[in-house]
């Protein structure tokens, strides 16, 4: 019935499926065995909405760069000659992400799905990966649920999570003298998790969180919240807003005069594209955690130059994360000699990695969190900017062991 159905729907299908239907063997038998005779890396992300700049089409290009590098490295020794990179737009809608992921695994011949921004979409795709027993390498979604309560054997979280953002910024700023905190957060899952993690990190570092202020989402008017936050005379106002709301808040923070009173602004999640589109003036002095910065060392910079030539922009950490995830996936396929998901997972688990993106990296077997060193960054003053995209000054390194929660605390159980 299974194959009959596929034949009947042949008009919509490609050669891939015909090959998979009569290719024989099937996953499981090892030794140069690839479904459809090829490897398909499917990038599923937001190509049209708010996450388009931070990841979007340029993440597809980053993945293609990884494929090119893999082919260059192994040449004739590559276990698979034909590698396809496909791109799908989930339009920032979780139900489309969910359907598309299923379709990519079942009909698009996808061996792995990459990226998938926003937590709701990523969690849905993780469920699809589990049901289809195919790989999902999350790069852009930050929820710890992916490596915690809702973790599964086929899902990896590559670049960062809310815990990293919180401990990095919260603990370091507190140690540098920002003892009294007030946190403003959007009142939904991401904001609440971030606030919990921040509070824990600040208190562990010897500071206090005197007040946490929930805000609606989306929201344009933060003046009242900032007045409230400023009334407690904190050293630092931490904001967990993202995207347009973050810009609203930063503009109104600058307007409010709190900066002149010596109140610092620490941001939970910010991408270099936010700074690029708004100009450094607005953000100057802001502290935030950047899992990876294109100008942090020579190796990163060399890759960023290639990326610039390819796309006309400098990469965000999400672009670099997609490159790294694709590259390490290909390495694991090379080692396994097959695209069989279980075999590839076995090669990935526990591997220690160093590449353009991952410093001191480890693909943890227990919870599939890919841990690595990150950075605490400060936005430069306009006068210090030497070239386009030169916006960040690295304040300090956040070691992997400190930034990511210990695997035992993740609450992940791979057996289910």
């Amino acid at each position: 019935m299974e194959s009959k159905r596929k034949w009947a729907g042949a008009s919509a299908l490609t050669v891939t499926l015909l090959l998979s239907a009569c290719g024989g063997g099937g996953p499981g038998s090892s030794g140069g065995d690839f479904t459809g005779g090829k490897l398909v890396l499917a990038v599923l992300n937001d190509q049209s909405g708010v996450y388009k700049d931070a990841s979007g089409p340029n993440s597809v290009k980053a993945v293609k760069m990884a494929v090119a590098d893999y082919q260059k490295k192994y040449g004739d020794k590559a276990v698979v000659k034909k590698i396809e990179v496909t791109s799908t737009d989930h339009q920032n809608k979780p139900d489309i992400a969910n359907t598309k992921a299923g379709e990519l695994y079942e009909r698009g011949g996808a061996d792995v799905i990459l990226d998938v921004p926003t937590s709701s979409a990523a969690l849905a795709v993780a469920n699809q990966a589990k049901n289809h027993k195919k790989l999902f390498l999350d790069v852009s979604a930050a929820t710890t649920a992916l490596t915690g309560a809702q973790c599964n054997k086929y899902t990896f979280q590559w670049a960062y999570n809310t815990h990293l953002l919180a401990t990095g910024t919260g603990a370091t700023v507190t140690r540098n003298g920002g003892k009294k905190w007030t946190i403003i957060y959007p009142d939904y899952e991401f904001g609440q998790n971030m606030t919990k993690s921040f509070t824990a990190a600040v208190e562990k570092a010897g500071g206090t969180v005197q007040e946490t202020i929930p805000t609606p989402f989306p929201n344009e008017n933060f003046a009242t919240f900032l007045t409230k936050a400023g009334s407690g005379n904190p050293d630092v106002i931490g904001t967990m807003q993202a995207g347009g709301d973050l810009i609203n808040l930063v503009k109104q923070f600058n307007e409010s005069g709190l900066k002149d009173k010596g109140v610092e602004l620490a941001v939970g999640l910010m991408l270099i594209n936010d700074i690029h589109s708004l100009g450094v003036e607005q953000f100057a002095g802001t502290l935030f955690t950047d899992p990876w910065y294109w100008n942090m060392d020579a190796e990163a910079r060399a890759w960023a130059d290639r990326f610039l030539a390819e796309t006309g922009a400098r990469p965000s950490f999400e672009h670099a994360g997609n490159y790294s995830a694709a590259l390490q996936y290909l390495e694991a396929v090379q080692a396994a000699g097959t695209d069989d998901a279980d075999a590839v997972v076995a090669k990935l688990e526990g591997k220690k990695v160093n590449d353009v993106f991952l410093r001191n990296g480890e693909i943890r077997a227990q919870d599939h969190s890919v841990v690595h060193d990150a950075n605490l960054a400060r936005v430069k003053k306009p006068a210090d900017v030497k070239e386009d995209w030169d916006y960040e000054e690295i304040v300090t390194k956040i070691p992997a062991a400190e930034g990511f929660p210990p695997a035992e605390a993740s609450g992940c159980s791979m057996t289910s």
Partner: protein
Amino acid sequence: MTQSVIIEAPADGADVPVTASHPRVRWILLAAGLVAALALPWFLYPPVAMDIVALALFAIALDILLGYTGLLSFGHAAFWGSSAYVSGLIATHYGVPFPVAVVGGAVFAMILALPIGYVSVRRSGIYFAMVTLAFAQMVYFVGYQWSDLTGGENGLQGVPRSFFGLELVETDSFYFYYAALPILLFGMWAAWRIVHSPFGRVLVSIRDNTPRARALGYDVDKYKALAFVLSAGLTGLAGGVFAISHRFVALTELHWTTSGDVVLMTVLGGIGTLWGGIVGAFLNVTLADYLASSGFGGIDLITGSVFVLVVLLFRRGVWGTVRHQWNVRRLRRAAARRAAPSYSSPDRSSRHPASGEGTGR
């Protein structure tokens, strides 16, 4: 089923159809529709096929209000989404077969529609659209804030798909489609029954001339509220199946853009045609599905342009235009045969999607 609203309940109240639909055509269309519904998952990825049928019922349910009662609801996402959540929660916590969960969701949508409908139907036209929008926003915020129950922004993940232990249905969306299809077809049949019942005729007369309906002794508000609740219930059936099919519920189901999408589908198919919703849903879903993998980023550009073009040039919608052409041709032929002028009025529904009066001004 090819009869038009106007023909069934002319404004002058005469119950004499100007044209009678050809029964044979009706049966052919019905058979063709059923075959298409059964064949759909052979040609499309089954969950996409399921989306089409579920959204088709959603659009049809909206048309009961928009096309037959003259009320544009801009807040139907509240019923679609809340039923999706309730169905998902029932399935998750009680493990009952999914049709039970879906019915539970639909019942909840109807209960929710009672107070909303009671308040909203006191206004018509533009005001009604805005009031329903405001209520839908409230429901959205509840779904968004009550994250212990709904999962908030993350959505309700991992909704099970129980079906009497039949593993094929529970795991394979191809078989699930056939298990869920009867629920949606029942919804469509119910919609057809509603608009063709005496109750439906009263609705149309309210749409065409509210003061007159009132003068005839009908409790106009009660009829409108009942139509609202019934429409919400059918919307709930569709939303519940949608949730179980996706095995999760996203907060976007409650968002006002979902209300906008379904209005688009109804308008695209043809207001007051009932079955136009099927065409609208089919076009909308397949277009979105195609564009997602096409590498073309500006999906709203196309959606918006289609909307503008349809409203400007094809106000009858796809189904309405085809039906109109068909009727005109048939009438001409009949007129030629009998040499008697019978077709006089242009299709009035093209000028008034809703009531002729009641613009809220």
